[in-house]
């Protein structure tokens, strides 16, 4: 077995939390049940990884099998990577029947014609998700297995979720190969990025609970009990206001959990509005400014701002439109005749 493959497998195993190693190796299916039983999964990870490599040696593992283990790891722990969303366009043709073998063949052919030194692996999952792992090399060097990109293509949709990696220069190649293989016409990057792959899917496939415009009846008594504290000596004077905030929040955010995003970024190219006496920027150029909101769970924290008494309800539509518009990166320019919440798509 190749030294580099052995080392790669060893490092991949080390990434896995110790309690999950056995399950993941079983999913991998490369080592037999008998072989797995010879490994002590309670020893320190360093030793487990060495034992696993030894067994892989016996089975003469090559890079293809090692790559599959890497895909399995990333499929279970996708949140370690940052994912961007891409949308493909057809020129108004009918949706053709999707042929997986044809897709794989075309993808590999297109990518390899541009760059010979790549490792390409596929793995299909439920809900028509095709995971594609690409390890990039250069015209003169072998593929670097530690510099990988992942593309998750849902074949019944025009969407691809890509986690590029450091080598962004290979992104156009990857995009071309996807377009050609899936019989689409072109591909564009949406302004939507997050660590949580499932949340990106929720947003783009509209799987989150959306805001209700209709009145959502709930027994009044039930609500009052929720708002009043247990101590009858405390009188809530602002009960109506609190109810209004809850209602507005529910209308805007819906009832269910929000998709998980870590950032919202607003690039402002608007004119600086100041007191005319201050005489700032009399050249009247746009004031360039970047506003970035970050949070472990941005949408949930926005949802809790008004009930926590930290902001007015309703919030600015620039913040609340994020799931509906399926974007968390915005450019805001001046608009003639102010229209609240207006922004220009790039």
């Amino acid at each position: 077995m190749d030294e580099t493959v052995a080392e790669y497998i060893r490092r991949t195993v080390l990434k896995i939390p110790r309690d999950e190693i056995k399950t993941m190796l079983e999913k991998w299916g490369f080592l037999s049940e008998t072989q797995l039983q010879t490994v002590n999964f309670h020893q320190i990870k360093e030793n487990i990884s060495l034992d696993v490599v030894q067994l892989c040696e016996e089975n003469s593992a090559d890079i293809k099998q090692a790559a599959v283990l890497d895909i399995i790891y990333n499929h279970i722990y996708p949140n370690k990577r940052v994912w961007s969303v891409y949308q493909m366009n057809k020129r108004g043709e009918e949706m053709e029947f999707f042929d997986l073998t044809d897709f794989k063949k075309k993808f590999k052919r297109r990518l390899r014609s541009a760059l010979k030194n790549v490792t390409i692996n596929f793995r299909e999952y439920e809900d028509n998700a095709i995971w594609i792992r690409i390890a990039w090399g250069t015209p003169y060097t072998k593929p670097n297995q530690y510099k990988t990109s992942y593309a998750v293509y849902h074949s019944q949709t025009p969407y691809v979720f890509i986690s590029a990696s450091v080598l962004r220069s290979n992104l156009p190649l990857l995009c071309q190969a996807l377009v050609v293989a899936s019989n689409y016409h072109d591909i564009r990057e949406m302004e939507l990025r997050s660590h949580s792959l499932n949340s990106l899917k929720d947003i783009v496939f509209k799987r989150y609970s959306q805001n209700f415009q209709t009145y959502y009846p709930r027994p009044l008594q039930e609500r009052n009990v929720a708002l009043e504290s247990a101590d009858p000596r405390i009188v809530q004077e602002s009960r109506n206001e609190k109810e209004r905030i809850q209602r507005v929040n529910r209308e805007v955010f819906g009832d269910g959990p929000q998709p998980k995003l870590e950032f919202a970024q607003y690039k402002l190219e608007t004119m600086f509005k100041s007191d005319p006496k201050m005489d700032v920027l009399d050249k009247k150029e746009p004031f360039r400014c970047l506003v970035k909101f970050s949070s472990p769970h941005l949408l949930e924290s926005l949802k809790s701002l008004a009930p926590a008494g930290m902001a007015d309800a309703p919030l600015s539509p620039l913040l609340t439109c994020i799931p509906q518009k399926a974007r968390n990166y915005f450019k805001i320019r001046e608009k003639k005749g102010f229209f609240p919440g207006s922004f220009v798509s790039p």
Partner: protein
Amino acid sequence: HLATSLPLPSEMDHLRPRIDLIAFMIDIKSKYSLKNVEASLAHVDASFFLGKVCFLVTGVGRVNYCSVEMNAIWKLGEVYCSPVLFCELELEGIRVATAQRLLRMLQICAGHIPGVSALSFGSLMRNSADE
């Protein structure tokens, strides 16, 4: 009685007892809370500012998250001639001590302590803050 802002809803007027002390809570982590308090102050009758108003600044334990400038708070206390108390609601000991202080002030403002009026107590607190 807890309220998120003033004025209080008028439909509850007939159910409300006499108000002896108004404590305005400002979260030092939230500029919004300061703005809210400033807006609510406009709805308070002038007679309350003779010792029946105080400002309670919370969240002072988390120095890294201060959003409100101390100058703004001192100024508020000065302009409205009312004492400023500081506390950290997340620590039980401080919470209890602050509650006891407020209770003491309330007793004075309600006239339950003979010989001490709200006004005299208020000026006492202000003078000690200046030192």
